[in-house]
């Protein structure tokens, strides 16, 4: 799917859940592994020094027990590094903060309202919606397809 093209004709609203579409990452030239490697904690940055190849891991959804095979580095990021207190405290641009919040929550879909609240920016729900529904796909954060 070309970048910028929406999958659904239904216009997302403040109540539309968004998640990270990892298939978007893989379909784009952008080096997602490099981006994710930067998000790892120091210990795992070292462990995944050779970040270009990792084995997929079966990640278990904490709420539904559904299994999703995820990239090994992504798994470590979600289950360990993103759970460190400093992960969400980092002073990063809004889109990165959203990405980090989704990762820290196991990529559980969240609405712009929820994201704004969790990011302690309750007045910015509309800004988040506008950003995520703009012409550009930011970091593969997209509305969840029904």
């Amino acid at each position: 799917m070309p970048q910028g093209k929406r999958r659904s004709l239904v216009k997302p609203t403040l109540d539309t859940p968004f998640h990270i579409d990892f298939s978007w990452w893989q379909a784009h030239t952008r080096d997602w592994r490099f981006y994710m490697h930067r998000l790892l904690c120091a210990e795992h940055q070292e462990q995944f020094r050779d970040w270009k190849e990792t084995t997929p891991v079966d990640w278990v959804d904490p709420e539904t027990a559904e299994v999703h095979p995820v990239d090994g580095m992504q798994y470590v990021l979600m289950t360990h590094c993103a759970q460190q207190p400093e992960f969400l405290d980092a002073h990063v641009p809004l889109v990165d903060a959203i990405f980090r919040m989704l990762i820290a929550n196991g990529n559980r879909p969240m609405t712009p309202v929820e994201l704004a609240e969790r990011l302690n920016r309750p007045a910015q729900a509309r800004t988040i919606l506008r950003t995520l529904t703009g012409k550009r796909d930011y970091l593969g954060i997209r509305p969840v397809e029904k």
Partner: protein
Amino acid sequence: MIRETYWEDLSITTEDIEALYNHLLETETPLTPEELAAALVAFRLEEEQRKLERQQGGGATIYLPKGRYEVGQPLVFPALDWAEGEVVAVREAHNPTMPPFEVIRVRFADGREREFAAGLEEHILNEPPQMRDDDPLHNPESVLATYGSALAEKIEAALTENDEFVRIAGKWFPRALLMDVHVGYLNLAEAVLDMHSGGPLPTAEIIKQIDFPADNPKLAEFSLDYALQESEQFDEVGPAGQVLWFLRSMEPQWVQETPPYLHYRPLDYDRDALTPEMLALEAALGDELSPEIPPADTEQVELTLIYPHWRAGTLPLSAKTRALFPTAYQAPRVRFTWVDAQTGEEFPGWVVRPGKYVYGLEAWYKKKELMPGSLVTLKPGKTPGQVLIQAHTHRPQRDWVRSVLVGRDAQPVFAMLKQIVSAEFDERMVIAVPDPEALDAVWEEIARKRTPLENLVVSMLRELAKLTPQGHVHAAGLYAAVNTVRRCPPGPIFALLATRPWFVHVGDLYFRLDESAI
């Protein structure tokens, strides 16, 4: 098993509407949205319990992550709204950070396949689902305490869109169950109200007097209420929770229609230009046309009369005063009783919600010899339908008072004249009007010519400035003066004062006119 966001996310379904309909059929009693919310919660909890029993008693095994499953085994998934599927493959999981477990591939009824953990000892879903009364999400009282208002709002919205339900005074009932009310009964009801000076009368009293068949009194009452509501001759004027009927043709003229003195054509102005002092004054003035502010939490409200309300026999229904007056679920006009706080005399009053004013004070203003600028105090009455009103009267005395007259050129002229003063007033806002009829002509002329507000503010400031040695005029006085010739809330006037260079602020919201800057 009810998920955490079950009640928060709940949307009213066709089954819910049907259940509410049946509940109303069974009880044969009109119910408020709050009462219907209680019925809905009971219905939903029963439904969830039934669903659980059905699933537990059915052929499919409830999926638990700790279980081990075989290909071909049917499973049901409580966390996925009890979706059913069949195991189509089993494999070893790959996850070096967790104890060994299996992954089952499940095909659901829609053909989609998803993978789930099996043989996994640690997962929240390993607790078998059950309905527990001590869980606040399963306890009707705690559900209603937390989500009752939100559920009532959702029910209200859903029923409003459904033709099968009717609403009277905030209560809902199935249309099909209403008794047929013949037009003859409406004529009789009209005659009864006519004999009682138009009303107000409760439905039960009307039923008694017109001999309406009332085998089921509540049903009879609601049916007649609905018929009266649908007829344009009658007006429901009861406060919230009480149904009282009035004959529309016998309501005072200025209850049926907004008095001309209170008509306002909204003006665009820059609210950001208003200073904090101006905003504080605007809130204190309590004009019904000012933007809504949080209502005052006070037992007593003091108001300064302005000419339009003095002339119309009304007072503003603003954020400042609203809490003192009865309100209604639907009725645009609510009848209540004024009580003179000094004499105990009672007389009828009306809350006119669309016009944002309360009516019924024309005679009382005359009796108390009040003038625009007089102070009036409002307090809650002994019963919810009563409002105490007090003028701060004293022995009449002649005093120099700012007065407005109409000149030969049909323009308002302000002068200090000796007037008989019988009540306390606000020095800044008082304006005696010896000849209101003459001022009516000015009012009409300004409305006809559509004189710009700015021109009026300039001419009023010029007029009022003549009456003080320094030529300074307070913003509140200017607001009062403008309102002797056209209706205008403080906001647009204050915005002009704040933004035009010819209005010079001299402190404490006093202004002078710089003629050289015009």
